[in-house]
């Protein structure tokens, strides 16, 4: 009888350990995957000092986006209304940029704004600097998009932006800053790395 009781207690303990061990194993496995994270940080320097931080795993976005079907977004693709493109053939434009050599494409320097559009190291760079006299209107915008991400975005067809393909292409990229906006009253930063927090 005593042996059966001991056996029963032993089996109970063993079952509990197996349950806990499997939970721990699942936890450890999820922590070791090579994750890429898209971070968005907005800091308002007004009196309330609003801060918004968004950290999204790229893989999560890639897998969840195709399930959303709302307005222009279907199957991870956004429909672009050609009527609002002012008859600009985006595909032809992108093709021209893709095949062109690195260099500055647009440089505008005026008293109001400096604008620079360039292709450099496989990335499309857009820099807009606001020179307006009012201090609160001054802003500095930097956009750096890898060309292969742009290619992936426009890979779906003429009237669609393939967000999932864009995210997939972005995930292959190393740590990179995508968007930076600095103005007197706010800073916005969009970047990608392998950290799950936006501390830096």
């Amino acid at each position: 009888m005593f042996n059966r009781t001991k056996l029963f207690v032993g089996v109970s303990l063993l079952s509990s350990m197996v349950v806990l061990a499997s939970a721990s194993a699942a936890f450890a496995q999820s922590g070791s995957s090579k994750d890429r994270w898209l971070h968005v940080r907005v800091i308002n320097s007004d009196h309330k000092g609003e801060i918004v931080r968004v950290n999204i795993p790229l893989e999560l976005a890639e897998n969840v986006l195709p399930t959303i079907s709302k307005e222009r977004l279907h199957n991870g693709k956004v429909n672009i209304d050609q009527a609002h493109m002012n008859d600009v053939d985006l595909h032809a434009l992108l093709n021209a940029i893709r095949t062109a050599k690195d260099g500055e494409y647009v440089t505008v320097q005026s008293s109001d704004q400096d604008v620079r559009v360039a292709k450099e190291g496989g990335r499309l760079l857009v820099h807009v600097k606001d020179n307006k006299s009012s201090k609160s209107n001054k802003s500095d915008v930097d956009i750096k998009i890898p060309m292969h991400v742009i290619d992936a975005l426009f890979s779906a067809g003429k009237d669609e932006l393939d967000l999932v393909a864009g995210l997939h292409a972005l995930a292959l990229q190393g740590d990179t800053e995508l968007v930076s906006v600095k103005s007197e009253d706010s800073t916005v930063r969009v970047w990608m790395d392998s950290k799950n927090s936006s501390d830096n």
Partner: protein
Amino acid sequence: MLLAKIALGLASTVAFAAVYTFREGVIRVDVDEFRAGGSHVHLWVPAAAVPIALHCTPRNHLENAAVKIQPWIPTIRQLAKELEKYPEANLVEVVDGTDHVQIRTHAGKLQIDVHEPGESVHVAVPIATLEDISSQLTENIPGA
């Protein structure tokens, strides 16, 4: 001796129930209003009880809920599946003066915390439970 057997049986059942509940997690809802006469709601529900509760819910109520949420069920299911891969992550955080909103995963749960002067809300749901709920709602979509 018989009493010892019964006690051992009861203790084992309680131990197994505790392990099962611990494994499935607990849904926690805390709402506190920090003012005179403000309400304080603290709700702890074993996640293991949710599928049972859904089975006991009148079918027409479940069908109604399922129809309303139907377009988002695939998203919720996929989101739950994906979130399980990230048991510790700060997904969204908004700090606006004294207001603070945070959506994160912690210890395998999806947590939503809202703190504002005079009120705080804390909701924690095991991620696996979200998947269970979406599966059960899918089964209750009329004609599915």
